[in-house]
């Protein structure tokens, strides 16, 4: 059976002034896989996934999602097509409760038009609770999001992504600041999510990458340096030189 391509970029570029943050990336993602993107600081990983989500427009190139060219679509339309993006720098509603934060995401899926009727408040809140339970925040529903510990805010960010039930979940360094036990739980969460959606994961923690990734893409200076199975990447000379060779 032919593999189904979920996402494809061609010649994707993003320049900031003279800086080529993403510099001509051809990238393909298969439906159902967990893909890790690794690379040194400043390699262009966050910029690359921002181009996928539509958060920033590309300088050149195209993005195709689920058989459709989405290059010209604004971010909110891409979210509705099934691309969920969680921010590297935590981006939540600080003065709202934990439950309300995730309820906004759940509402986007369950009640997409704000003028037409959709799911009830109860259904929206139940969906939000379920997403919070998945990341283990269900005992903090009424706490104000802005006062949560950093690690919990990261998990809240992930829960907002989960509540969208996306076809593609993009996670930008989700485990930064999490404790070991939270990381262990997070790995389980992603494994469960991956049964129904595709996951694109930017991650510095190699333990997380090795536990989850089916394939790994290595970016360096805005270019695709290597791509392959975890074993292939670990043994790749160029990668070792560019990335793994660096002291952790």
């Amino acid at each position, binding site marked *: 059976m032919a593999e189904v391509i979920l996402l494809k970029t061609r010649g994707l570029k993003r320049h900031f002034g003279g800086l080529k943050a993403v510099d001509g990336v051809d990238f393909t993602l298969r439906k159902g896989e967990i893909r890790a993107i690794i690379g040194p600081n400043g390699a262009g990983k966050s910029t690359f996934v921002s181009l996928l989500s539509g958060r920033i427009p590309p300088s050149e190139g195209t993005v195709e999602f689920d058989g459709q060219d989405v290059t010209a679509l*604004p971010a*909110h339309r891409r979210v509705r097509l099934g691309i969920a*993006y969680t921010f590297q720098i935590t981006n939540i509603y600080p*003065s709202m409760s934990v439950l309300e934060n995730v*309820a*906004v*995401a759940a509402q986007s899926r369950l009640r997409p038009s704000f003028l037409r009727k*959709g799911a009830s408040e109860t259904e929206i809140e139940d969906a939000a609770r379920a997403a919070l339970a998945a990341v283990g925040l269900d005992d903090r529903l009424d706490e104000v999001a802005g006062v949560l510990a950093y690690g919990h805010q990261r998990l809240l960010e992930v829960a907002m992504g989960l509540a969208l039930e996306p076809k593609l979940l993009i996670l930008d360094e989700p485990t930064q600041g999490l404790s070991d036990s939270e990381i262990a739980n997070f790995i389980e969460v992603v494994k469960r999510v991956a049964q129904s959606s595709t996951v694109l994961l930017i991650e510095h923690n190699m333990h997380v990458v090795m536990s989850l990734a089916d394939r790994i893409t290595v970016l360096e200076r805005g270019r695709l340096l290597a791509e392959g199975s975890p074993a292939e990447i670990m043994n790749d000379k160029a990668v070792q030189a560019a990335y793994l060779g660096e002291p952790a």
Partner: protein
Amino acid sequence: MTIPNKKLFALCLVVLALLFMAQFVLSNYLVLALTRILILAIFAMGYNMLMGYTGLLSLGHAMFFAAGLYAAGLANYYGGVSLPIAFVIGILGGGVLAFVIGLLALRTQTVSFMIVTLMFAQVAYLLTLYFSNVTGGDQGLTLPTASRSFSLFGLAVDLTSPMVRFNIALTLFAVVLIGLFAVTQGPLGRLFVAVRENINRTEMLGFDTYRIRLLAFTISGAISGLAGALYGLMFGFIGSSFAEFRSSIEVLLFTLVGGPGTLLGPLVGTGVMTMLIDRLSGMTSAYLIVVGVLLIVINLWFPKGILGTIRDRWVPWLK
């Protein structure tokens, strides 16, 4: 259908009941004052919907109040349209103008948004003066005596009676209050607050925030127009002073004092401030300076307003 935030809903009903009872204990003069407060509180509720819940600070809401006032008043004065229909025309006037202005103004944010709304409102004000042969300019127009009463569903309504005016104002206040309860406390209100708290996040959760803001702006303008139409028709007078910058500032002040983003804040703020302004303008002609100083003081030391402060300290459901 279940009612969200039941405590707040109950409080709204209690407040409405108290207001209804007030007409039996207050003097005629105070009933008149309360009638004015209720109409201006409707205006402030419309403003609060945009500024308090959605976080968009407009400096030009006088134009929507005036749009309602003129649309209703001119339809009655020149077109001989009956008062109930003129009233509906006033609401549409405010809503349609807000939709059109919103299409343009909402392309800007924060300070530019304040300036753009202010500019549109000044243009609107100048237009009312420029076409003074139609609008009556700053002299205004007094609606014909025939428009001091009307019949609705066979019921004769006499607008020269203070009690009748009070009960009409209270009825419309109640309708707007309950309507805004439904809007702000449910899924739509969640989106308005989400836009206020973090617009980029809301966009990245799949919402077209331009459309959400346009909707908030239009609702806000329609309610402001409703208040303007009510004011003009009930007191039988339309004049360009309602379109002045001062009206935009006053409605901002009422909202800030009462507590932006609280459902009952506009009523509290309008009540407190109109009482105060009445006293002040009796004592000094420079009361606008006092208002200006008050704005600054509130902004610096009291940004949540009366009900906002109470909410944050003691009563979290007061939103």
